C-alpha cells in the first residue's frame, strides 16, 4: 500500500549536484528517518518524493507505479512542513478540512473526518480558532491533522519538531510515534537530530552531501556503523576516535570507542588521564578526560562516579566493543 522505491534519483540545482544518485527501498508501514547534518540534501530528497521538486534523473515508484511525473496531490502523500505552513486566514477546522474540500467531499463527510482527526490530536476545543491563537505544539498538531484526514499512503515530515522547545519536542516525538503505531501508514521523517532518529525510526537512512552513507535499523547503526561518519553521527555523546600508535596496537588505522564502552577506575587501567570537566547528572556521570597519549576522551558511566576537575582517572576500553576503521575511514 505505501511502498516507495527510488531508482537512481538525482537532483541538480544548476551546476550544483545536491543529490548525485540515490537508490532506496522503503517498505509499506515503515517509519523511515532521513538523518544527516544540515545542508546534506534531506529536505531536497523529501521534496523530490513529494513532487514539490522535479527530479533531474531517475525514477520514483510509489506502490510499484512510476510517480516521477505525477503532481504532488496525485501521489497519495501528505506532508508536515517545518514551519507548519498553516493557512493563517482559516480556522483550525478549515485548515484540517482543506485537503478534503479540495477533493470535493461533501460537507458532512468533511466535518466527520475533521472531528475524528481533532479527537485523535486533542484539538476538539480549538477547532474554531485561527492558527495565530495557538501554541507551537498545537499548531504542530493542526499540521499533522491536516495530513492525517486524507488517510494518505505515506506521511512526509520535514523537521517537524525543530521549532518546539525541548520538553514539547519529547512529547510530540512520542505522539508521532504513537500515531504511527495507530495508523500504520508509511512515514518518512527528516531530521538532523540523531536522538529523534534513534528513538522513532524503524529504519534510518544516514545522508551526507547527498549520498547515502548507511541504511539500517537504529541498533544496527549503533552496533556496526559502516564508516567513521556514521559512527560519529550516531550515538550521544559522540564516539571517541583515536589514531596513531594507540590505534595500531589494535590493528587499525583509527579506533572508535563509545563513551559508554569504557571502564573507569581511580586506581588502575589502560590509560591514565586527568579529569578536565565532570558532569554529574545523578543518573549518569560524563567525564571529559585529558589523556596524554590519546588526547581528549569523553566517558559515560551509570550513576555517580565521584571525581572532580584535576583528579586522576584510569580508562580501559571494552575490547569487545571497540570499533576499528581502515585508512579510508571504513569499518574494518
Amino acid at each position: 500500500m505505501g511502498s516507495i522505491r527510488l531508482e537512481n534519483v538525482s537532483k541538480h540545482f544548476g551546476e550544483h549536484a545536491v543529490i548525485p544518485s540515490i537508490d532506496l527501498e522503503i517498505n509499506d508501514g515503515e517509519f523511515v528517518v532521513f538523518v544527516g547534518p544540515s545542508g546534506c540534501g534531506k529536505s531536497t530528497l523529501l521534496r523530490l518524493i513529494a513532487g514539490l521538486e522535479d527530479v533531474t534523473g531517475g525514477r520514483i515508484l510509489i506502490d510499484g507505479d512510476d510517480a516521477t511525473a505525477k503532481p504532488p496531490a496525485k501521489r497519495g502523500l501528505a506532508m508536515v512542513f517545518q514551519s507548519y505552513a498553516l493557512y493563517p486566514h482559516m480556522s483550525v477546522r478549515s485548515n484540517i478540512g482543506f485537503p478534503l474540500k479540495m477533493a470535493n467531499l461533501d460537507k458532512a463527510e468533511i466535518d466527520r473526518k475533521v472531528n475524528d482527526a481533532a479527537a485523535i490530536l486533542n484539538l476538539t476545543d480549538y477547532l474554531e480558532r485561527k492558527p495565530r491563537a495557538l501554541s507551537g505544539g498545537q499548531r504542530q498538531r493542526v499540521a499533522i491533522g491536516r495530513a492525517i484526514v486524507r488517510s494518505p499512503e505515506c506521511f512526509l515530515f520535514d523537521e517537524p519538531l525543530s521549532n518546539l522547545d525541548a520538553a514539547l519536542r519529547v512529547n510530540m516525538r512520542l505522539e508521532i510515534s504513537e500515531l504511527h503505531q495507530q495508523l500504520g501508514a508509511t512515514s518518512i521523517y527528516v531530521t538532523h537530530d540523531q536522538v529523534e532518529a534513534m528513538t522513532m525510526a524503524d529504519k534510518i537512512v544516514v545522508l551526507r552531501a547527498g549520498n547515502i552513507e548507511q541504511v539500517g535499523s537504529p541498533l544496527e547503526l549503533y552496533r556496526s556503523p559502516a564508516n567513521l561518519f556514521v559512527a560519529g553521527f550516531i550515538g550521544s555523546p559522540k564516539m571517541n576516535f583515536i589514531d596513531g600508535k594507540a590505534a595500531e596496537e589494535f590493528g587499525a588505522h583509527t579506533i572508535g570507542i563509545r563513551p559508554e564502552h569504557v571502564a573507569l577506575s581511580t586506581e588502575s587501567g589502560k590509560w591514565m588521564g586527568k579529569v578536565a570537566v565532570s558532569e554529574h547528572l545523578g543518573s549518569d556521570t560524563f567525564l571529559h578526560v585529558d589523556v596524554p597519549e590519546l588526547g581528549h576522551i569523553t566517558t559515560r558511566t551509570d550513576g555517580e562516579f565521584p571525581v572532580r576537575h584535576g583528579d586522576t582517572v584510569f580508562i580501559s576500553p571494552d575490547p569487545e566493543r571497540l570499533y576499528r576503521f581502515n585508512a579510508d575511514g571504513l569499518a574494518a
Partner: protein
Amino acid sequence: MATTHTHSAARLMMAPSVILLLLWMIVPLSMTVYFSFLRYNLLMPGTESFAGFMNYRFFLTDPAFFQAIGNTLILVGGVLFATVAGGIALALLLNQPMFGQGIVRILVIAPFFVMPTVSALVWKNMLMNPVNGLFASLARFLGFQPIDFLSSIPLTSISLIVAWQWLPFATLILLTALQSLSEEQNEAAEMDGANAWNRLIYIILPHMARAITVVVLIETIFLLSVFAEILVTTNGGPGTESTNLTYLVYMQALLQFDVGGASAGGIIAVILANIVAIFLVRMIGKNLED
C-alpha cells in the same frame, strides 16, 4: 516551489508593467533630448530648426540658471538638515512611553498628508502673512517689527514650509528604525556603564544609520522637484530669488513656451537627479539581497 513551466506565464504577467514603464521612460525622455537641440517655441509653430548646443549654452550662461542651481541645493540641503535633525529628536521623543502617545503620533505625522498646495497656502496666508499672519501678531505681541517672510527671506521661508511637510516622513521612518532596536541591546550597554548620551552615540545612532541614509536619499529625490510650494507662495520671486531648477524649467516651458530651452534645463535636472539615484538604487539593491 519551482517545478516547471511557470516562467513564461511569469513573463506575461510582468509584460504590461515593464512595457508601460519602458515607454514612459524612453519616449518622453528621448523627445526631451531631441527638443533640447532645437530652436522651438510653442508660440511660433513650424519654425523649429536645429540649434546644436545653443539651448545648453543659453542655460549655462544665464545667471538665473546658476541661481536656480544654488537655490535648489540650498533648499535640498536646508530641508534635509532640518528634517533629519528634527526627525531624530522627534523619533527619540515619541519612542518614550508617554501619555496620549497615539494622539501625539497622529499630530506629528499629519502634515505629511496635507496636500502641498494647501500647506503652502496656509503658511502663506495664515502664518507668514506680514499683516494678519500668526507670526506677525506674535512678533508685534513681543514688541518686534514683523517681517514679510516671503518677500524678504523667500527661500528660507519656502524651506521652512517644505521642512514642515517632510519632517513627519523623516520622523516616521526613524521611529520605525528606532523601534526595531532591541531593548536588550540598550540594556546591555547600560550594564556596560554607558550613559544616555553614550548610548545615543554608540548604539542608537549607528543603529539608525541605514534609515537615516534612506531618508536622505529619498527626500533628496523629492526635494529636487519641489514645485507647488513655490508656485503658490512666491512664484519664484522676488526676481529669481526663490526659483529652483524645477520652477525655472516650468517657467521656460509653460510661461515662455520655449520648448528647446526648457528641454535643455530638463536634461540638466535629469542628470542631477541621476547622480543621487545611483546611490539610492545601489543601496536598495544591496538591501534586496538579504
